[in-house]
């Protein structure tokens, strides 16, 4: 069963691994996140930000990079087929869009784990902020963050399949739009209660509430579990919706237009 799964997803992971020879991908995985982390770290030093303030800033920056890279791996994988004019060849092969998305997502997880490790080590060594103290919650955080990346990735590919390449910019900007409502750098208590209720219907907020609760010694497990249940629901819904949208794309000639 495992070998069957590997066969399904490995080609897409392999494409991404081989493509990572491109310097720009290394920049996306390490350079820009590190530069952003360094700037924010220096900002905390300059303003003598409190420990709680540092907690919000560093968990926000590192956690967000994890989700962002997972989502980008999916979006970039899909758009890459259009940019290389290889879409027709790829999708006339006996592969499914679901396997294609999951394969690229798996690469996103690998890249995100590398990025997380490097960024957390950097934060520890330079700014004395220890994210490794999350301990057993690290894999739980990673799983939830990866699922959030998958959900946003499915959404971005769905939008491109529906509206065409005119909305390809959403692949790059969708995660940034989500930052605003998901309490990445602040608690969502800043929003009115009704808005908080709606925000809690989406899993991203649980990533940051969970990670901060774990570092502050609060009940993080409950938050993460709630987040995972909601995330699984959204993943299932996303996979169902994208199947329908792919049918729509086949009816409207998406692959012919962008093949």
């Amino acid at each position, binding site marked *: 069963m495992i070998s069957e799964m590997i*066969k399904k997803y*490995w*080609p897409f992971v*392999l*494409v991404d691994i*081989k*493509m990572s*020879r*491109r310097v720009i991908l290394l920049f996306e995985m390490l350079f820009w996140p590190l530069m952003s982390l360094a700037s924010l770290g220096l900002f905390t030093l300059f303003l003598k930000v409190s420990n709680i303030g540092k907690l919000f800033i560093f968990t926000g920056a590192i956690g967000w990079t994890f989700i962002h890279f997972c989502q980008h791996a999916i979006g970039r994988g899909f758009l*890459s087929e259009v940019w*290389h*004019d*290889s879409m*027709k*060849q*790829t*999708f*006339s*092969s*006996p*592969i*499914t869009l679901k396997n294609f998305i999951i394969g690229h997502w798996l690469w996103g997880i690998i890249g995100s784990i590398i990025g997380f490790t490097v960024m957390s080590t950097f934060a520890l060594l330079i700014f004395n902020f220890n994210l490794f103290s999350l301990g057993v919650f690290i894999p739980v955080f990673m799983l939830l963050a990866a699922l959030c990346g998958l959900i946003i990735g499915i959404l971005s590919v769905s939008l491109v399949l*529906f*509206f065409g390449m*005119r909305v390809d910019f959403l692949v790059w900007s969708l995660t940034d739009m989500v930052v605003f409502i998901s309490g990445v750098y602040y608690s969502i208590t800043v929003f009115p209660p009704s808005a908080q209720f709606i925000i809690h219907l989406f899993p991203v907020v649980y990533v940051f509430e969970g990670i901060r609760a774990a570092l502050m010694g609060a009940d993080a497990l409950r938050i993460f579990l709630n987040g995972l249940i909601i995330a699984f629901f959204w993943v299932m819904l996303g996979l169902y919706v994208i199947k329908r949208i792919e*049918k729509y794309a*086949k*009816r*409207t*000639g998406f*692959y*012919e237009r962008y*093949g």
Partner: protein
Amino acid sequence: MLALEAENVRKSFKSYEGFFDRIFNRGKNVEALKGISLSVKEGEIFGLLGPNGAGKTTFMDIISNLILPESGTVKVFGLDVVKQGLEVRKIINLSSAYSKFYDELTVRENLEISAMYYDMKIDVEKVISLVNLEEYADKPFGDISSGNQQKVVIARSLMTNPKLLLLDELTIALDPNIAARIRKIIKKFRRENKTTILLATHNMYEAEELCDRVAVIHRGRIVACNTAANLKKLVSGEDVLEITLDKIESPSELLMARFEGAKSIIINKKNNSVVIHVDNSEKRLHGILKTLMSKKYKIKSVKLKEPTLEDVFMKLTGAKLE
């Protein structure tokens, strides 16, 4: 068993202008296929001959499960392309002249990854040598010439030894030498593997050279289907005169001119020529030249041509292939 059976396949697309037109499904309907029916026997090379926009690629994409037809059925070796899309994709392979690969990966890497999609044991080296690309195997795809890129695309479609091979504009935009070499590869592959091939082309030479049977497709309809030799009989009893003039200022004036015995007239402004189908060139030539000279045209050359598939196409549709 038939390799391919299509029955009354229709497809139209909506063209949307504004962003919200798509959401509210307000678009202009463009009919791409208007009831295509055909059958291809196992082992046959079947050509779809028609100009750009005739519907060839749309039909190929329906067979490849990239587009869903509006109505009608398409079966590949008995499998329905809509209901059993994944199964169909396992036994076909598509080579499109407009398709490429990842520029950054080498030729070998690209083929190896494509092979993985099919979950088959594939000897990539054998495929590379089949298309004579050994010396380019380790070069990035983006660094090799367009002719060699086209060979890689073809290699990819041959490597799975498909039961039905779809070739969409096999040699478009390639220089004649490379195009001839690619046709040779396809012929050899077919001879050795008895593969059924569906070739969409607007190149009449290619259709004549490769295909056992040819369907002439125009504006989403098949207007004739037979062997190339039998199709040419449609214009037998007719001669084709190609007259090159010094310049053509007013094509409409030529179209209006009453050339004695002319059955159809095609004007090619690019090379200032007029192609006239007549029942008897010997009898009619004098009158035609006289008419042209009376309209102050200078005649540079006159050729009597053997009828080609292009002439068949012109006769059937009144349009040119290009």
